[in-house]
């Protein structure tokens, strides 16, 4: 039945599920159950995709193409490669966990909530696999509506402000991207991504087009001065919304930068690349410093996202295989660890209806298991070797250090590295204030520890965090061909200071990662 349309099934199954829920899910139990069923089935389907994926091939795989509009110039074209594949997996992996996490927390208008979650999942998956620019844009914009509804309906006190701000910020960026896409469309004569790639545009045009694309992606990431929607959206969103937002949605920005902006307009990188790098380093440090002083745990995690995604952008614009691989890896790692952090914050919020650090203290006495899980995730987030956070950051810093594109690359790498230190500082400090010391509040004494349902959605993530940390090589090996394929033409075309941009040929990424995965072997 699945045949050659396996990817379409992965993308559209949640959509079908959403419609089914809207039609039948008058009772909350039915809506939840159906949503869970669909999400699990979708994950299973994406595992089939993984199984069929040929890791040695860097090109698009499982391609599906059908004429859509304009006599086939605009087509329904989807595919996965080493870059898309793992983001798709991340999305489908988080899907059921998110639904499980809001099993109790969302009791009002359950049917709509489940439908929106599944719609959002379909749109996100579509964005990752689209290989036609219009299709990509349609999926990209379609993410907006369900996400702002989730924030706006089930969110906190200032939810409407946050939802509207999220919508407008994202819209500002993407609408200029539409003009850029249109411009390229008439130059290329087709909306196919491959035809866009083949375009030979003059440098001046590339600058403008890159700016239009990069604005859209930088807002989504969010890159430093454009990040202000993020804390609002995260704080006001319900747990489920935060998890998806941090886990997947933010990756849209970095994915877009990597997939579209850089390969399509490589010449613009010599102008904009250093600026993006500087902004991302500012974002890394700024995000960490602001996180340091947050009284609210959720806001702290939100700002930590700004910091972590700064790493991803930095690695991406370093234009080194290590940097880009690290960027992708960091996207996955951040998706898991920050997703888990938001879930954990949700767990305590459900019990106490507060997220302020000062309302806690000594929680380790009341909820020892919860405290251990939180510790595990915190360590993953700060990049303890052996857990997922380390691999990405290490590769990014290595890549940045060796980048030929960025001026003062070593300085940038050193500055970014201070972000790692600061990250450990704010996370562990927060952990200390929340979990250690005496139980200061009577209310916290009787808190129940993790329930089986909570274990059910936390455990898979914990396993994932550990697995990514210990065995990153299988992932990195599958990414490598795709990254080389993407990077090759870009670096060939670029010249820095009149000399062709030569990247020092590193060891195979898999070996690098194998080395770093065992902390003892790193010198």
């Amino acid at each position, binding site marked *: 039945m699945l045949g050659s349309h396996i990817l379409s099934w992965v993308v559209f199954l949640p959509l079908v599920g959403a419609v089914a829920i809207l039609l039948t899910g008058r009772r909350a139990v039915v809506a939840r159950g159906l949503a869970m069923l669909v999400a699990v089935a979708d994950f299973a389907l994406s595992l089939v995709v993984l199984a069929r994926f040929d890791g040695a091939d860097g090109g698009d795989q499982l391609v599906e193409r059908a004429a*859509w*509009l*304009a006599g086939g110039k605009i087509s329904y074209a989807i595919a996965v490669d080493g870059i898309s594949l793992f983001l798709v997996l991340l999305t489908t992996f988080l899907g059921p966990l998110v639904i499980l996490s809001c099993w109790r927390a969302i009791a009002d*208008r359950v049917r*709509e909530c489940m439908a929106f979650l599944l719609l959002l999942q379909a749109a996100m998956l579509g964005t990752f696999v689209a290989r036609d620019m*219009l299709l990509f*844009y*349609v999926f990209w*914009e*379609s993410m*907006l*509506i369900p996400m702002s*509804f989730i924030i*706006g*309906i089930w969110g906190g006190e200032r*939810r*409407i402000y946050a*939802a*509207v701000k999220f*919508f*407008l910020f994202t*819209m*500002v960026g993407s*609408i*200029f991207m*539409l*003009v850029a896409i*249109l*411009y390229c*469309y*008439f130059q290329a004569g087709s909306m196919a991504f491959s035809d866009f790639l083949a375009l030979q545009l003059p440098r001046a045009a590339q600058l403008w087009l890159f700016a239009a694309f990069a604005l859209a992606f930088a807002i989504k990431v969010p890159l430093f001065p454009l990040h202000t929607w993020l804390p609002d959206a995260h704080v006001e969103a319900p747990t489920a919304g935060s998890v998806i937002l941090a886990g997947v949605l933010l990756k849209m920005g970095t994915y877009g930068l990597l997939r579209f902006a850089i390969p399509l307009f490589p010449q613009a990188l010599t102008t904009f690349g250093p600026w993006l790098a500087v902004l991302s380093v500012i974002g890394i440090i700024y995000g960490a410093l602001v996180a340091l002083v947050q009284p609210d745990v959720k806001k702290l995690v939100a700002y930590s996202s700004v910091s972590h995604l700064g790493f991803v952008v930095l690695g991406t614009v370093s234009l080194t295989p290590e940097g880009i691989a690290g960027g992708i890896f960091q996207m996955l790692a951040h998706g898991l660890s920050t997703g888990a952090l938001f879930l954990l914050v949700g767990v305590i919020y459900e019990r106490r209806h507060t997220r302020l650090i000062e309302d806690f203290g000594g929680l380790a006495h009341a909820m020892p298991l919860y405290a251990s899980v939180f510790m595990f995730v915190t360590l993953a987030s700060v990049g303890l070797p052996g857990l997922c956070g380390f691999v990405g950051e290490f590769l990014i810093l290595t890549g940045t250090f060796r980048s030929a594109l960025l001026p003062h690359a070593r300085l940038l790498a050193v500055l970014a590295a201070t972000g790692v230190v600061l990250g450990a500082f704010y996370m562990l400090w927060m952990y200390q204030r929340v979990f250690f010391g005496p139980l200061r509040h009577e209310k916290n004494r009787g808190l129940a520890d993790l329930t089986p349902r909570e274990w059910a959605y936390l455990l898979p993530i914990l396993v994932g965090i550990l697995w990514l940390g210990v065995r990153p090589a299988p992932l990195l090996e599958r990414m490598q061909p795709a990254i080389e394929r993407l990077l090759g033409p870009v670096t060939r075309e670029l010249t820095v200071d009149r000399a062709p941009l030569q990247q020092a040929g590193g060891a195979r990424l898999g070996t690098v990662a194998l080395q770093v995965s065992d902390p003892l072997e790193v010198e």
Partner: protein
Amino acid sequence: MPAVADASLTAQFGALLPYLVVAGGGVLLLLADALSRASRRDHLYLLTVAVLLGALAAQLFGPAPERTALLRGMLGGEAYTQYFNLLFLGIALLTATFATSVFERAARYRTDFYPLLVFATLGMMILAAATDLLTLFLGLETMSLAVYVLVGGQRGSLRASEAGLKYLLLGAFASAFLLFGMGLVYGWAGGTGYADIADGLRGAGGNLLLLRAGLGLMLVAFAFKIAIVPFHMWTPDVYDGAASFVTGYMATGVKAAAFAALLRFCQLALPELGGFWWPLLAVLAVVTMIVANLVALAQDGIKRMLAWSSVAHAGYLMLGVLALLATGRQGLAATVGPASGGAVLFYLVAYSLMNLGAFGVITLLGPDRGEEADRISGYAGLARRQPLVAASLAVCLLSLAGIPPTAGFMAKFYVFGAVVKAGLVPLAIWGVVASLISVYYYLRVIVVMYMQPAGESIHDGRSWETAFATGLLALLILFLGVWPGGLQRLAEVTFRTLAG
């Protein structure tokens, strides 16, 4: 010389049948309205539906449209005419359906509504088909006179009377401009047929002053009907004062008819319009989009908001027309022309769907709500009370904002695409900036519906016909958002029939 050749008239009878059905039906409705007792006037709705469906059938199953002109060059009989006639008849059908749900509860709205609706539709059909200045004027006046009355036709409502009078006075002014302009053009070309003007342009040389002045004055009249800044001043008051279903009819039908006539006229007088008046039109289009969207931000009433939004959409549509006109200057006519014309045609259908849907919902909720019916705050909590209706309105508004996957996005995509293709990237950027502004006020209504709790108890109207119709429109909008290809091809092919 005999006035009319018999044989040709018989041959044209099939093509003229839709007009005859609508005209005859209008007279019939007038009589039925006058002769039936007040209590039994619900039959009028059925009769109206029968007339409109009859005309639809006559248009659909009649003889295949040809390039030949009807009535000795007075009307065009191409697919272009058919396309618009189907659109107008569909709009009228939906408007009648919305109206009847209101009449069941509030009889004061009913003042010869159905015959006027049918006559206005006839005017639109003639306007879109006109290939002669005389029929152009005839169609415009038939449509406008009926709409003037429809606007003012709520007994005892001061606001409606004010709106009707305002529209009548300013409309008469616009008609005068049109007549004067037509006079000048006629004086220049020596004939009233579009073909005469085209002949004159082909042999053009010497003094074009008269033609340019005439075209300019005619453009003023068109700009009034489609509500382009600075000829838009009547729009908010009139849209606000009229009954909601009439507003919906005006926003879609009248605008589409005026654009249909304008496009046909542009296609004809391309070189001159494209050359001399183009810069001014471009400035007006940009000003229209920006001003209308900015003012719409500040509106508290949903109808006023939609009125300004319709002005803004006239601006987007003008972008398509500008792209078409630009082709005359740059010799792009073969490729860009049909694309831009087709984009405008597509846009008009998409725009009609979403506006009718929005006004349908407003109509549906309106009559039991009293004076404050149209405040946006009154929509708080609608998603909880009537989820399906709220969802329909949300789809319509998202489509108006141009967010995929809706018909509105595809419409904007095609229009902006045509603009970029014509090499007018700055215009496209202005359009994009304008639609960015618009997102906020459309979103506001959705936010109120979905995210705010209902304040005081509001008595929403309920009517299954309207709910069904708006739901259907919402589905259509989504369908066109995903599979716009069919309609787009149809629109482009249709426009090509005109271009020949």
